[in-house]
């Protein structure tokens, strides 16, 4: 006597999975929602909590989707679902930004992936640098209250969990050089050119 398991229709489980994940996010059962976003600087992974956008990761530079989510699971919560509707705002604002129709991001941020203290102070100061302007690492160290810590300021910016939105690409070396960037210097150049700061 054989009892083969029932057949599923193609895509049936995947469709139900997507509905379940969306419901988990809507009803607040999932603590973290994510979506992937295509952009001129490559694919991004956007991660939000009920407090706001917590992570915007360059997918390839961070080891791919699995590695990014593993890291978020470890540092925030494993209760993560893919729920694109929860990331609609950031996707729209990124589209507008890359399309030249937006200068400032206007959405709540969740800072919990940046270490409290100096690092977070540097990143919060960085979030205030306006579109089209630049600062030096030294400026950031001074703004965060430790004028001599410009190297540490560079480290803090390098650990920025929300690049583009927290515009660490607007911070340059005092020599006038580009300095470093979490997404690679080519992307830093591209972002600065979008903002009219350098010519590509």
């Amino acid at each position: 006597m054989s009892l083969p398991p029932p057949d599923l229709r193609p895509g049936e489980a995947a469709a139900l999975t997507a509905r379940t994940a969306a419901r988990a996010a809507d009803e607040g059962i999932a603590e973290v929602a994510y979506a992937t976003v295509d952009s001129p600087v490559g694919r991004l992974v956007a991660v939000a909590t009920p407090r706001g956008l917590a992570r915007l990761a360059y997918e390839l530079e961070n080891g791919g989707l699995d590695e990014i989510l593993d890291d978020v699971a470890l540092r925030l919560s494993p209760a993560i679902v893919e729920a694109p509707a929860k990331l609609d705002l950031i996707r729209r604002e990124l589209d507008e930004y890359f399309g030249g129709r937006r200068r400032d991001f206007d959405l709540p941020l969740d800072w919990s992936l940046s270490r409290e203290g100096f690092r977070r102070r540097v990143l919060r100061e960085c979030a205030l640098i306006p579109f089209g302007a630049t600062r030096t690492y030294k400026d950031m160290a001074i703004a965060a209250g430790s004028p001599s810590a410009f190297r540490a300021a560079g480290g803090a910016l390098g650990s920025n969990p929300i690049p583009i939105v927290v515009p660490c690409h607007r911070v340059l070396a005092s020599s006038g050089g580009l300095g470093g960037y979490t997404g690679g210097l080519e992307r830093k150049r591209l972002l600065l050119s979008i903002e009219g700061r350098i010519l590509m």
Partner: protein
Amino acid sequence: MTKTAARLPPFQRFLDAHSADVLRYLVASIGRHDADDAFQETFLSALRAYPRLSAGSNLRGWVLTIAHRKAIDVHRARGRNPVPVAEIHDGAQRSPPPGEGEGEGDHWERVRALPARQREVLTLRYAADLTHAEIASALGCTEEAARRAAADGLKNLRKELTDVAATA
């Protein structure tokens, strides 16, 4: 290598890995009509408990045990309202009763009509592909009792099929 301890995967990965198994199990044990809701309830319950789960748990066995409990709820509700169609007075069109024209194979309809324990063991064994040990732990019985219920269930199915063949 041993530096990173076992960790829970992000829930989405767990959901993707087990969604087809859970759905197949639910379609077999309660029919297609109720499987969608039970599927969502299963994974939402799993998600509520997920952050407190210890890493290295048998995640597949765990989620199928939750699905099993949801299936029991559906069977109990049907037991309380054995003929729900009889209560419809508005003449509105309703979905067909569970199992009808749903194409998941006659044999699971017959399994659903078996005594509860036999039904539970056969669906967990053959639709969810759990081991007898996992089934015993899901049902809170001994492995021996699970084996016996499976054997009894198969015997009943065989008898039914012979009866059907004889009257045909």
